[in-house]
């Protein structure tokens, strides 16, 4: 899921100080799980805005805020509240915010969160980055552990000299990705493969931005 974090409230209030009335859009998917855009957070934001003398005309936890057409349909029933709002506050990720930008051509749209990474939830509201969306998965070559993401240098052929007792030079809190890959390959009896493989440099053209995908055959552009 997309991991998001609330922006500092003081900074946010400074950003939106020119507006009086707001409509809030959360998201029931990632943002709700991150505690940044579910029902409780929308309630908190409403309280914070009203404490500053602002007006909240309404709010919705969109089912999937990054789904443009679906969100647009969901918002139809809030036409009046939306009309009264000078500004839309989006409480999900950057994709959700930009869905709103597309939907509201004539209204300013502000994000209340910072979007951080594609993450795994390991415990309640604890998230780890394990995939960088590099466009060409190498997990089949690295024992199912991604060094592009979990090694701060994204090394492809083993640990650097900065590995200390199985931990990373960048932070002792980071386990060395290549020690983990080595241990796993050993457990799976695949050490020979690990030793013999020299992975070629990544083809970063696969990540050329902005990326898009048209997965429906008949809708190919």
């Amino acid at each position, binding site marked *: 899921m997309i991991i998001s974090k609330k922006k500092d409230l003081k900074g946010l209030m400074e950003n939106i100080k020119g507006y009086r009335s707001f409509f809030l859009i959360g998201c029931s998917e990632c943002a709700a799980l991150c505690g940044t855009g579910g029902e409780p957070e929308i309630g908190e934001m409403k309280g914070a805005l009203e404490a500053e003398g602002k007006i909240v005309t309404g709010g919705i936890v969109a089912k999937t805020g990054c789904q443009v057409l679906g969100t647009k349909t969901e918002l139809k029933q809030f036409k009046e509240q939306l009309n009264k709002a000078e500004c839309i506050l989006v409480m999900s990720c950057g994709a959700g915010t930009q869905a709103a930008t597309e939907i509201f051509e004539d209204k300013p749209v502000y994000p209340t969160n910072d979007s951080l990474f594609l993450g795994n939830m390991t415990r309640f509201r604890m998230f780890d980055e394990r995939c960088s969306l590099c466009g060409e998965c190498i997990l089949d070559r690295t024992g199912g552990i991604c060094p592009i993401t979990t090694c701060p240098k994204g090394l492809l*052929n083993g640990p650097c*000299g900065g590995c200390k007792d199985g931990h990373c030079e960048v932070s002792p809190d980071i386990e060395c990705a290549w020690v983990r890959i080595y241990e796993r390959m050993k457990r799976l009896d695949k050490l020979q493969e690990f030793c013999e493989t020299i992975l070629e440099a990544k083809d970063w053209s696969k990540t050329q931005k902005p990326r898009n995908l048209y997965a429906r055959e008949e809708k190919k552009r």
Partner: protein
Amino acid sequence: MSFREALNSGKFVVTAEVGPPKGTDIKDMVHHMELLKGKVDAVNVTDNQSAVMRICSLAVCKIAIEYGLEPILQMTCRDRNRIALQSDLLGASVLGIKNVLCMTGDHVSAGDHKGAKPVYDVESVQLLKIVDGLNNGRDMSGNELNGAADFLQGAVVTPEANPIEPQLIKFEKKVRAGARFFQTQAIYDINKFKEFMKYARRFPVKILAGFVVLKSAAMANFLNNNVPGIRVPQELIDELKAAGKEKALDTGINITARHIRQLKEERVCDGVHIMAIGMEDKVPLIMERAGLL
């Protein structure tokens, strides 16, 4: 005799290190070069070491040539993508730089520009393959070069890494990727280094043991606690302690000289790499005491 010839001749090779300064005043650096001239087989020129921004390695390599030293261009993958790396390598080639040491490079978080974007477009093993390609007249994309490079390419290895197995697997990958010589992380335990050499001797590469002079027991403890792949044995720490504050540096120099002498006399490895780190003026003294001058 060039560095390449010295390595191939079977001579016990000595390399030292020149750290480019931060700023345009190169007086001290040139003084260190003059001290090393005629004494060492080559000097490594570090590449924004510890991710601290300094004069680039390439420019200082060229200055080293002007002052009569043979440089080893240290090249990390931290600050340049594959286009910049290859371009700098071709530039080095036409400036008369013959040796390159391929490294991954300390992470930017260690340095003085912590907000910099770390590059690591390629890494040390792939960089070795790039150099091999340039030597064979091809760039990384397979395009033919109008004139090939002719580098002697080396790499680094940490004989005391913990755990050691993944490090040795990478060492073997570097050998297969074309590394001709290795310079090691600083070693302090000669018996353990001998074990590493017993393993490394199976490969057709030259190994230069790395040395960093211990200035005090406190420094030894600091290295043990903070620097990956360095382990100073307790007996050396005791020796430094026993020497007292005034004599600690002299004792550290003696320890380094004693170790180098032993490696040379027993032909344990092919040479040594002395990383002076702020004590460049002591390198001739270390060499003298080690019986290398």
